[in-house]
């Protein structure tokens, strides 16, 4: 029995008892390349899926946006709307703590309505939920 055969027999016996695998250089290289390919192929396929889902979502959001855009020329034709001056001032940046952005927008709209002032002439510093 050659030394190589003896080594092989010892390795096989060791594998059988411990469940551990000893790879020769060819098998080692093959597993490494295969592993890298699996990761690449897996993520490439995932990329295709994400692109398809993204395209569907973009198409869906574009459709409703295009509909009002088609109506704008008619609206723009009215002279009153055309000559309306832009209100001066800005609402600035408002800091929101523990508050839903929708609730914050609603609060700002209510305050503007109560004060009878346009929203962009008011300055909100922060909105915080009192618990």
């Amino acid at each position, binding site marked *: 029995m050659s030394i190589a055969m003896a080594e092989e027999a010892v390795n096989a016996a060791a594998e059988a*008892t411990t469940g551990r695998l000893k790879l020769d250089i060819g098998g080692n290289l093959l597993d490494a390349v295969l592993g890298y390919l699996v990761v690449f192929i897996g993520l490439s396929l995932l990329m295709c899926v994400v692109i398809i889902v993204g395209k569907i979502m973009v198409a869906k959001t574009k459709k409703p946006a295009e509909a009002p855009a088609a109506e704008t020329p008619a609206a723009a034709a009215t002279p009153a709307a055309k000559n309306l001056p832009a209100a001066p001032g800005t609402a600035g940046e408002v800091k929101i703590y523990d508050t839903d952005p929708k609730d914050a927008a609603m609060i700002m709209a209510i305050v503007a309505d109560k004060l009878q002032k346009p929203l962009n002439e008011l300055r909100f510093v922060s909105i915080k939920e009192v618990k």
Partner: protein
Amino acid sequence: MLDSLGKLVTESGFAGFFSNPDGWRNLVMIAIACVLLYLGIKKQYEPLLMVGIAMGCLLANVSSVFMTSNGQLPDALYHQDLWDRFLNTGAYTVGYEEYLHNYGYILAEGGLIDILYIGVKAGIYPCLIFMGIGAMTDFGPLISNPKSLLLGAAAQFGVFFAFFGANLLGFDAQQSASIGIIGGADGPTAILTTTKLAPELLGPIAVAAYSYMALIPMIQPPIMRALTTEKERSVKMTQLREVSKTEKILFPIVVTIFVVLLLPSTAPLIGCLMFGNLLKETGVTERLSDVAQNALMNIVTLFLGISVGATMVGSRFLTFDTIKIVVLGLIAFAFSTIGGLLVGKLMYKLSGGKINPLIGSAGVSAVPMAARVSQKEGQKANPSNFLLMHAMGPNVAGVIGSAIAAGFLISMFGG
């Protein structure tokens, strides 16, 4: 009274350093634990885990010094021999079948850390940490630029390069796979893979993985500068498209279905990562998302750190294999960075110079450190460059990529 005093002295840990044959190893490990504590506290190398790992190492070695005359460690918080019996390995292959995969013995005979370690052994902690990571991650940059996934895949090059190298250095396939996954730059993934394939290497692999993750700002920049030109590094990328809420909700569901069907062994990691992300994105489970990314994450990090650190007992850690693992870990990190950069350069060429190749190096997971390094290097070349959000895409793709790499290795060599 003298007898009591004598008993107290002979049974102390100090006496154990001389009476216990492994006493000197414990002493060295205590010194190593102190160095790791210094790195975690003073240098702030991944302190949330490093401090726990170091303290676990310290506790395991301090409490294992005193050994009774029949070889028992009555005060040890962690018993390596108990876990060898649990796995029927080492000196416990024959005649210990009743211990095989029997948690009852661990609960009855184990110390505090043995019991905490059950969470590592059963693969619970890494998955719960992944849930927290998912709840903290914004996949928006990846969804708006899905090509980032290719960079996340490319940056797994180091995993398989180190796997190949470890095999050549004499490690068996399971050990090589565990060493290779250090290149994924993802602590929980490395811990889960090692626990399943080569638990005897858990200590050195965890320390190497977390140390190199902390050292990313030092490891990556020289490689980035060597492989890219000033012109490439100064490329300004166009703004990403806005991602709708529906897309963000759909993403974790689609990824879970697709990736788990493709590679079922990724289910624990990908499933938990995407579950955490779904909790974040739905907007109707804010409380659960908050728990996953804060309270639960912190609790699991505590248990994970201390129990992984406890596996660093002197008799197992102080071997030549540990040095080989540390070197191979560094090689894995470096080659993962190279893989990401090379595909980044290819994308730069194919896109006609619209993609900055620096974002490729962020594919090595390690969120968000690797993305910050890309941003910093890009800004050095061009001060008006803002690559952070572009680099976050490959960065989070790297998390998915390393989970797939781990799933492949576990399914190939997990038995």
